[in-house]
Structure formats: structure tokens, C-alpha cells
């Protein structure tokens, strides 16, 4: 090993290759910035696969009856779409890409606490992704259980379930290791003087997220192992013919998978909390309240899993309790929305692409959140359960929440990551088309669900036709916007005009280092003085 003094301080991480050359200098790099980009590129690829599957589903639903696929294929398509999007994109999304890239810089560290473990997490992630792909390409048919792998169908179906289940387990392991790494990094590597209450909000949201990843993922891990063993050996724990209880599976699954929703949304909220003050040129309103609400969401989020199972068979007391707890989560979420709006109040707003994404995030998050209260209430839940309404709510929160925040974050941090600026006009056009398509795609689902159209069917009654056409058209418009956004970013990463160290006049630490950052981030570790805070705008 060479001594660290040989690492140049004036070479950016994009140029410095270290021990290996070319592609190897990326896939064996332990630099948190390169690992962040590795995740970005692998997720982008998998995301496009997921999008194509989504488009296929919407195309099938353009007319009643069979359009392009049979019922069995439709089941496989929505299952694989769900598994890819949930386990490979939205759960690891913001933490793995922007968390890896920005967390160490934002807290004034040279890297994460365990750089090798960080690289291992990426390799585990890729292994998990390959396992899922194997289940699609080989065996007796693609998984067709839905991404929830509900018992007993998940061990009765003839489809090739084992690689998919094992893949989800492996992806969970990657998620656990990333979370572990971030917790230790935040505890041990904050810059001198950066106390907990001086840490920016994106690292705070990563901290809350990491704890959920750590404490919830093992439970779904063991549950998936049990399903796999049930399939191989028939141990009986979830098999009613052997005395097992399938509802126990649902409980164990949602004990993880509901908190997982907060793994998705908390870092998304964290990124928005960075973008809004920067483009309002004003310190964030209610910093401490935002921190507390982050932790409150993480904590209360553990105790609401039962609201996925209101119609599965539960005592009345349990139903009331889960419903009330679900309503409680809305409080810290709404507090965040109020704080973001209040931050804009009397700020000098600099309307740029990231701000558009952030503002539209608040809009779709609001719709998603309010429709969540509709399905969280017992009476309406029974009516809307398993209808298209739930699909609409879910996509507004998860795709609206994570997607808009992700694109906001990438337009915000892009100049820092690549040292170049993107074409703003095309970025804004892409955003506008994407947003129009998004609303056209998912809004009709609320209407369809209330009219009684069930989810997960490849066919529907003639009376649902008009709204479904609108939804399918929306999927095309949204994809067009997506293509514009992605092409614009790709072209700009290569040939955009050079960006300075601080193009947005941001106040957090990542804007104090050159763009793109040098290998070791900081020449000298920054120090926080007594009166420095995370968002000190004049």
C-alpha cells in the first residue's frame, strides 16, 4: 500500500484512478464518490427496465380484454416491475447514490467509516439484482406473486420464485450494510465542531433512514428465508395445510415493508430540505422541528404495518390502533410541508430546475399523503382495498415522492458531481412534460379505484375504458419527459459548460470544495465555529 501523502490534492475523483485502471478503477474503487456513481449508473439501467415493464402494463390496459399479453404474463410483469422498482430503485435510491456521494462531504469527512464495506455493499447489490434477473430469464416462468411474495401462493406457484426471493434477501443485506456504514460515519466522522444540531438535514434524514434499514430489514430477511425453506423443504410455518398461518407471514412482511416506505421517503424529504433553503436564499424554517419530525416519522413508522392488512383478519382493537397510529404519521409529515413553505416565505426565490422539482414534489406528496389518509381510515379502506386507488396513492407517494426528489437532487448536485452545468432550458422542458405525464398517468387511478376497478387485473369492464386511456397516454408523456431529462443530463456530463464550486450559492459544506471534488474531498478538514450553523444565509 502506498502512503496517503502520494494522493494528489488537486486531481478530481473523476480523473484519479488509483491502483486499477479503466473500468476496474470504478468497480474496485473504495472512494465513496465513485461508489455513489456506480449505484447511479446501475440504478439508472435497472430503472429503465422497470419503466419498460410499467409501459407494457399500461399498454395492456389501454383497452379491455387482451391487448398484448395474457393474464399470466401480466402477473409476471407487475411482479418484476414491483421487485425491481421497490428493492433495487426506491429503497436504496437516495441513500446509495446521494448518501454515498454527499454524506461524507456534507459532514466534512474524507470518506465513509468503512470504505471497503461500502464497496462490498455495491457488489452485494449487483449480486441481488442478478439473482432477480435470473429468476426472470430461466426456470418455469417469471415470478408472479406480486412484489409482496404473499404466502401460501409464493411457495405453491410453479414459477421460478427461489432466485427472486433470495435476490430480495441479498438486496436487503446490501441495504443493512449501507445503513450500518452511515450510522458509524455520522457518529464518528463529523467535522470538529459540527454538533448534532449543526448537521445539515440531508445527513439527518440519512441517519433516521439508516436506523430503519438496520432494525427492520433483518425481519423481512428471515421471513424471506422461511418462505424459501417452505418452498424447498415444506417446514410448515406459513403453510395452512401443515398448521402454519399465512397471516403471520403478512405481519412479518409488513413489519419491515412498511418502515421500508420511510426508508424511501425520509432521504427524499432530506434532499428537499436542502434544495428549498438554497433556492430561497434563506435559512431553513424550524430546523430543530424538522429534525424531530424526521425521527418521529422513523419511530412511529414502525408501528403502523397493520394498515396493510385491515381486510386480512384482525381484531377490531388492532384495527383501531393501527388506524390511529397511521394518522399520527401524517402529523410530522405535514409539519415538514409547512416548514418548507415557510422557508420560501419572504425568501429571495431563485427559480431554477431543482426548485421546480422540489416544488412539484411538495404538490404530489400532498396529494399522495392526503389519499393515504383515505386508505388509512378503516371504513374507506374496506371499500378501496385492492383497487386502483391504492395503486394511485402508492405511486403518488413512492414514485412522486422519491422520483421527484431524486430528479430534484440530481439537478441540484449535478454541477458538484460532474463539475459541469446542464442545459437549463431542456431540463425545465423535461420537468414540465414529466410532471404533466405523471399527473395524467396516476390521477385517473383514484377515480378508477373509487368506481371499483380492482388492481392487478389485465382486463376491466368497458365502463373504465376512458380513464384508462388517459392513464396510458400519461405513461407515454411521462416517459418522453424522462427521456429528455436523462439525455440532457448525459450530454451535459460530457460537454456542458464548466460549473464553479458553488453555482447555487449553497451554504452547506459540499459547496466549499471544488467541482468535481478532489479524491480526498478536503485539503484541510473544516471546522465549525460556535456560531456556524448548517444554513447561514444573510
Amino acid at each position, binding site marked *: 500500500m502506498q502512503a496517503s501523502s502520494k494522493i494528489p490534492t488537486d486531481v478530481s475523483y473523476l480523473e484519479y484512478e488509483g491502483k486499477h485502471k479503466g473500468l476496474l478503477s470504478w468497480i474496485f474503487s473504495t472512494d465513496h464518490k465513485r461508489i455513489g456513481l456506480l449505484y447511479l449508473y446501475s440504478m439508472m439501467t435497472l430503472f429503465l427496465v422497470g419503466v419498460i415493464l410499467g409501459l407494457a402494463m399500461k399498454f395492456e390496459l389501454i383497452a379491455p380484454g387482451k391487448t398484448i399479453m395474457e393474464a399470466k404474463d401480466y402477473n409476471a410483469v407487475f411482479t418484476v416491475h414491483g421487485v425491481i422498482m421497490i428493492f433495487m430503485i426506491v429503497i436504496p435510491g437516495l441513500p446509495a447514490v446521494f448518501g454515498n456521494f454527499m454524506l461524507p462531504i456534507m459532514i466534512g469527512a*474524507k470518506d465513509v467509516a*468503512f470504505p471497503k464495506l461500502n464497496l462490498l455493499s455495491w457488489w452485494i447489490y449487483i449480486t441481488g439484482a442478478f439473482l432477480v434477473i435470473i429468476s426472470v430469464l430461466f426456470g418455469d416462468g417469471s415470478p408472479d406473486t406480486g412484489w409482496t411474495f404473499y404466502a401460501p401462493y409464493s411457495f405453491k406457484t410453479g414459477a421460478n420464485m427461489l432466485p427472486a426471493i433470495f435476490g430480495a434477501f441479498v438486496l436487503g443485506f446490501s441495504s443493512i450494510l449501507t445503513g*450500518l456504514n452511515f450510522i458509524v460515519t455520522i457518529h464518528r466522522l463529523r467535522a470538529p465542531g459540527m454538533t448534532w444540531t449543526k448537521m445539515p438535514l440531508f445527513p439527518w434524514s440519512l441517519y433516521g433512514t439508516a436506523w430503519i434499514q438496520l*432494525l427492520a430489514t433483518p425481519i423481512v430477511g428471515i421471513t424471506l428465508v422461511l418462505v424459501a425453506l417452505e418452498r424447498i423443504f*415444506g417446514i410448515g*410455518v406459513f403453510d395452512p395445510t401443515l398448521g402454519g398461518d399465512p397471516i403471520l407471514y403478512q405481519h412479518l412482511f409488513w413489519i419491515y415493508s412498511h418502515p421500508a416506505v420511510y426508508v424511501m421517503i425520509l432521504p427524499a424529504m432530506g434532499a428537499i430540505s436542502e434544495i428549498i433553503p438554497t433556492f430561497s436564499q434563506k435559512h431553513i424554517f424550524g430546523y430543530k422541528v424538522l429534525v424531530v419530525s424526521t425521527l418521529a416519522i422513523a419511530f412511529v413508522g414502525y408501528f403502523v404495518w397493520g394498515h396493510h392488512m385491515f381486510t386480512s383478519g384482525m381484531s377490531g382493537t388492532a384495527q383501531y390502533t393501527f388506524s390511529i397510529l397511521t394518522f399520527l404519521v401524517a402529523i410530522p409529515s405535514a409539519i415538514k410541508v409547512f416548514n418548507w413553505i415557510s422557508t420560501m416565505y419572504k425568501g429571495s426565490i431563485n427559480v431554477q430546475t431543482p426548485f421546480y422539482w422540489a416544488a412539484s414534489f411538495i404538490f404530489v406528496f400532498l396529494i399522495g399523503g392526503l389519499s393515504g389518509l383515505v386508505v388509512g381510515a378503516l371504513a374507506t379502506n374496506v371499500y378501496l382495498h385492492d383497487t386502483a386507488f391504492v395503486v394511485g396513492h402508492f405511486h403518488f407517494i413512492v414514485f412522486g415522492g422519491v422520483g421527484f426528489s431524486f430528479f430534484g437532487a440530481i439537478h441540484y448536485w449535478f454541477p458538484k458531481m460532474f463539475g459541469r452545468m446542464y442545459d437549463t432550458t431542456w431540463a425545465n422542458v423535461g420537468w414540465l412534460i414529466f410532471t404533466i405525464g405523471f399527473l395524467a398517468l396516476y390521477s385517473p387511478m383514484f377515480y378508477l379505484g373509487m368506481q371499483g376497478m380492482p388492481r392487478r387485473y389485465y382486463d376491466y369492464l368497458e365502463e373504465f375504458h376512458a380513464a384508462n386511456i388517459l392513464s396510458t397516454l400519461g405513461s407515454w408523456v411521462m416517459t418522453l419527459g424522462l427521456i429528455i431529462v436523462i439525455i440532457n443530463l448525459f450530454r451535459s456530463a460530457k460537454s456542458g459548460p464548466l460549473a464553479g464550486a458553488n453555482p447555487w450559492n449553497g451554504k452547506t459544506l459540499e459547496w466549499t470544495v471544488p467541482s468535481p471534488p478532489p479524491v480526498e474531498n478536503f485539503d484541510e478538514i473544516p471546522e465549525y465555529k460556535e456560531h456556524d450553523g448548517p444554513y447561514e444565509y444573510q
Partner: protein
Amino acid sequence: MSQVIHHDEHYDPEGSKIGMWLFIFTELLLFGGLFIVYSVYRYLNADAFHLAAEELNTTVGALNTVILLVSSMTIAMSTTALQKKQKATTIVLLEITFMLALIFLINKYFEWGVKFDHGIFPGSEFMKAEMSQGEVLFFGLYFVMTGLHALHIVAGLVIMGFALARIQKGTVHADRPSLLENAGLYWHLVDLIWIFLFPLFYLIT
């Protein structure tokens, strides 16, 4: 590349210990899921669980408990010896721990083998024909939980193997004891889980 930055200069024993503790939390929750499943079915099938537990060999179970407890002691002694810079003692104590872990697995092998001979294994026709659903569940959980625990013993053996090699090479020593300390923490966890498995399966009848 940046492992260079960190690995040589940025040695943080406190950080790696925190990391290990966090990992232990996740392991506890992993088994926690199984303990939940166990308690639900024990509650629902109290009589069948009682009957099935009679099948297990308490002597072998108790022997294995003693073996693991002693091995926990020897690995703790090994860590202390490392702090006192007694390299030879450290290595001998770690090797004893390693051997005890192997003996545990050998016992387990024979214990499971006897069950298999009696037709007791997941998915066996004998169990479906002769046993109640509660008994099938008991043995299903028995094999899953002790099997997963045995897998952890194997992982522990690998970690101890690494620690042994690194101590012999001299890269783990009194000033850089993290690998051995973490191996010890992990081994205590494996021990702790067995301390719960033993009474739940063998003693409560």
C-alpha cells in the same frame, strides 16, 4: 484507492466496535423474527410442542451448551492475552475456541443424524403421516433455528480463522486488536442465541 487513505492512517477502533454492535443488533432481530414465530406456534400448539420436545436429547443439548459457554470464556481470555501482549497464549486460546466450535458442530451432526434416522426431517412422509400439525411445526422450527445457528457457528469459525492468521502474521496486535475483539463479540452473540434456543427447545417440555 482511498482504502489507502483510511486503512493506514484512519484506524478507528471505536468506530469498528460501534459497527460490530450495530451488526449484532441486526442479528438479534434476524433471530427475533424466528422467536416470534416460535412463540406464536407454541401458544397455539402447547400440547404438541410439549410432546415433540420430549424427542430431543437433553444430554447432548446440555453438553453443547457447556461447550459454547467454555468457548466464550476462552475467546474472552484470548482477547485479554492479546492486550497483555502474550502472543503465544492468545493463539493457543483462540485455537481452543476454534476446536470447541468444531466439537459443537460434530455433536450437532450426530444429533441431527439420529433425527433423520427416525424419519424426522422437514418434508418427511413419516412426519406427515404420524405426527400432529403442532409437532410438524415444532420440528420445522427446530431445524430452521438450530440450522441457522449452526450456520452462524460456521461463520464464526471463518472469522476466527482470519483472526488467527492475522495474529500470527502480526497485523493484529495489542495496539490494533479490533479484529479479535469483534470476533469475540460475534462469538458471544452466537453463544447468547444458543442460550435461548437450548431452553426453548430442550428444557421446556
